[in-house]
């Protein structure tokens, strides 16, 4: 049943009133070449009952397996109170509400979220969130071009450890606006960016992007990269993992003057993996470029009676006011995910988040040490890592992962496609959710697969 309240008669009457022959005529201004006549590849509609059954059977595929895959989305313990509060009727909306100021509680939650994000990133201002980590990089790249008007370059230089998926998404979103993305070579001995090539880089990029910890779990030389970029007149974009920020130096403190923009994936803050989403994107920046930041921002103010209140602010940057000149076509945020993240952070506090970070790092270190005792398995780098690390096998990774999956172990992420220079490697992750018994179960399964 279509949930459209207009009858055929209603539609005829409305079209007649405005003197238009058909609904299609209302879209006349869209050139024919840009229209799609049919939706090839979109299957026919299913009934509610069929959809429920399909979704249940898909969800069941997730059940039972021990997950050691990180690669951008991380399994953390989410206290049940997080989603208990988040799904209350007062909060349960996906977006910033219309007539936002009528929803003071929602605005206050977003304001608290922004405050927490600026505290974690060491930045001056945070927006109310973006769609996800990958699109947050695209928005940060576009923002850096607007903010760095002295630079004529449209080249964005990525550190070697930037998530390849983020690069693809950023290219898809920002490529048509003339931005190009290049990557520093990877030092295959350390798993970090090879900084020697910076010496020869005469052509200054408009921005340098550093992911910390890197996609490979390693620690980039953020101070050096930041100072090099600023010396060249480039802005610095930090891709962060919010859990790691509980123990690592905040991007605002990188190098002599700090990164200019921090972005990243907010999922680790209380959002379940849910087979890939919905997640939310983080974005924060320095005060001097706040007007180039996309997305909504909530500010604190006082009303006519002098009482404190919350309001959307700097809206002139946004699409509903600035139209085609807006900083972005993003006019909303991931409100529900941000509500969960805010409650998660409030529950854990700085000390709790720090314990999650340290425990995750320790479990991964233990896992790597245990796996390295198996023949044909060794750590790829001697360098320190956060809660993810690269393991080298003496054989192709994919069949091994498939055999592990049959034993209900999701053994990690196959790096051979994104980082072919590393050979047969996989990225493994253990968070605080993995007990020592879980690590042992993985090691036993891998042992069995490798000796089969």
């Amino acid at each position: 049943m279509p949930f459209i309240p207009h009858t055929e008669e209603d539609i005829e009457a409305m079209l007649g009133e405005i003197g238009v022959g058909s609904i299609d005529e209302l879209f006349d201004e869209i050139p024919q070449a840009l229209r799609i006549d049919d939706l090839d590849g979109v299957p026919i509609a299913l009934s509610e009952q069929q959809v429920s059954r399909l979704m249940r059977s898909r969800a069941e595929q997730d059940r039972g397996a021990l997950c050691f895959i990180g690669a951008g989305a991380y399994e953390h313990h989410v206290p049940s109170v997080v989603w208990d509060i988040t799904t209350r009727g007062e909060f349960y909306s996906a977006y910033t509400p219309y007539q936002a100021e009528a929803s003071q509680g929602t605005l206050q939650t977003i304001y608290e979220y922004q405050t927490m994000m600026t505290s974690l990133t060491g930045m001056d201002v945070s927006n109310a969130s973006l769609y996800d980590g990958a699109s947050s990089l695209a928005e940060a790249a576009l923002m850096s071009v607007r903010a760095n008007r002295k630079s004529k370059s449209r080249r964005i230089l990525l550190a070697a450890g930037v998530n390849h998926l983020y690069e693809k998404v950023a290219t898809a979103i920002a490529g048509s606006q003339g931005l190009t993305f290049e990557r520093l070579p990877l030092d295959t001995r350390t798993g970090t960016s090879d900084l020697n090539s910076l010496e020869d880089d005469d052509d200054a990029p408009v921005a340098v992007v550093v992911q910390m910890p890197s996609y490979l779990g390693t620690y980039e030389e953020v101070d050096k990269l930041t100072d090099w970029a600023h010396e060249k007149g480039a802005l610095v974009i930090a891709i962060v993992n919010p859990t790691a920020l509980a123990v690592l130096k905040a991007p605002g403190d990188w190098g002599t003057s700090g990164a200019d923009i921090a972005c990243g994936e907010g999922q680790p803050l209380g959002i379940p993996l849910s087979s890939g989403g919905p997640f939310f994107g983080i974005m924060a920046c320095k005060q001097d470029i706040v007007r180039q930041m996309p997305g909504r921002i909530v500010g604190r103010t006082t009303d006519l009676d002098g009482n404190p209140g919350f309001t959307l602010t700097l809206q002139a940057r946004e699409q509903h006011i600035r139209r085609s000149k807006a900083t972005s076509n993003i006019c909303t945020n991931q409100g529900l995910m941000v509500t969960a993240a805010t409650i998660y952070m409030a529950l854990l506090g700085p000390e709790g988040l720090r314990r999650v970070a340290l425990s995750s790092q320790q479990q991964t270190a233990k896992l790597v040490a245990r796996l390295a005792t198996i023949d044909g398995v060794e750590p790829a780098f001697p360098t320190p890592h956060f809660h993810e690390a690269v393991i080298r096998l003496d054989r192709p990774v994919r069949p091994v992962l498939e055999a592990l999956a049959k034993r209900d172990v999701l053994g990690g992420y196959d790096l051979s496609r994104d980082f072919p220079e590393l050979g047969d490697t996989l990225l493994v992750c253990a968070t605080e959710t993995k007990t020592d018994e879980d690590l042992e179960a993985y090691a036993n399964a891998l042992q069995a697969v490798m000796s089969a």
Partner: protein
Amino acid sequence: MSELPGDLKYTNEHEWLRQEEDGTVTIGITDHAQSALGDLVYVELPEIGQEVESGGEMAVVESVKAASDVYAPISGEVVEVNEELSDDPEKINADPYGDGWIVRMRPTGDDGDTMSPDEYQAFLDELED
């Protein structure tokens, strides 16, 4: 409505131009424009040395209500910008024809279409009707 300064030229985009003795032209927005925009909170200035074409975007003025482009009334090179507006955009509200100037340009081509004070006053009167 305040008196229009007699030594300026005006455009139908509500900008004013003052021919300086050194050949440059100072440009700002008119009292009518600032009053229509309301309290200004931010001005985005062009880079010094930037070449702008007549009719092209030159600056952005943002008020609590709206953000509007300021179009270059003439073609030329930006030789000076009013840096004080970065910290103090309301100077445009307080003194649009004086401290609230926006850019100084060295013209590179013909003058664009401008109006005398009387013509601009007539243009404003027509808008109000």
